[in-house]
């Protein structure tokens, strides 16, 4: 079936390094993706989004890249900080209701 998923369950990086979290999707018709950050005991928090008419989008310390050819997107976090430690999800908005289809998540651990 169609799915949105992440490549690695856990990513451990040193404080100050850059982090890259990857996500693959299977539906070639998907056109709107969002990255969420979820801290323990909290709901997901919007980080950045990208539509299929773009290859790259930048925010504050974050960049999302979309490769439609191989159906892959990535989240890059520059100068990773301890406060970035969380679970990161890629999600797709599917259909005309705006419902989110989430992948399983990657846990980012930042070592001081």
């Amino acid at each position: 079936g169609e799915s949105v998923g992440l490549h690695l369950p856990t990513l451990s990086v040193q404080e100050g390094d850059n982090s890259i979290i990857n996500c693959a999707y299977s539906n070639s018709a998907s056109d709107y993706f969002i990255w969420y950050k979820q801290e323990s005991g909290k709901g997901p928090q919007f980080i950045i989004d990208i539509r299929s008419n773009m290859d790259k989008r930048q925010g504050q310390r974050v960049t999302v890249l979309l490769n439609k050819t191989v159906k892959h997107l990535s989240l890059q976090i520059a100068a990773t900080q301890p406060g970035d430690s969380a679970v990161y999800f890629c999600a797709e908005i599917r259909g005309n209701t705006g419902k989110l289809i989430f992948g399983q998540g990657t846990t980012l651990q930042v070592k001081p």
Partner: protein
Amino acid sequence: GAGVSQTPSNKVTEKGKYVELRCDPISGHTALYWYRQSLGQGPEFLIYFQGTGAADDSGLPNDRFFAVRPEGSVSTLKIQRTERGDSAVYLCASSPARNNEQFFGPGTRLTVL
């Protein structure tokens, strides 16, 4: 300003009991979504409200689950005859309109013993 709030934050119940979970969306947000998140998984869509009506309930797992939003603001997710497999975190999100950014509440952790 106030975000999405959910009550209770934790709910422990026994198998077979009925539970109600409440969501207070951000004021003025017409779109409201319920999701369920099992341990170690991403949230799974349950139901979407636009105003008072359930525009998409395709994610409800079975007829034990029901949700209402009678005045287009607060929503209640109702689960009848709870089963141990219903144990999860139930998340609510609201949005100014569909296909806009969704703002999530902290969730209600439901444990069915």
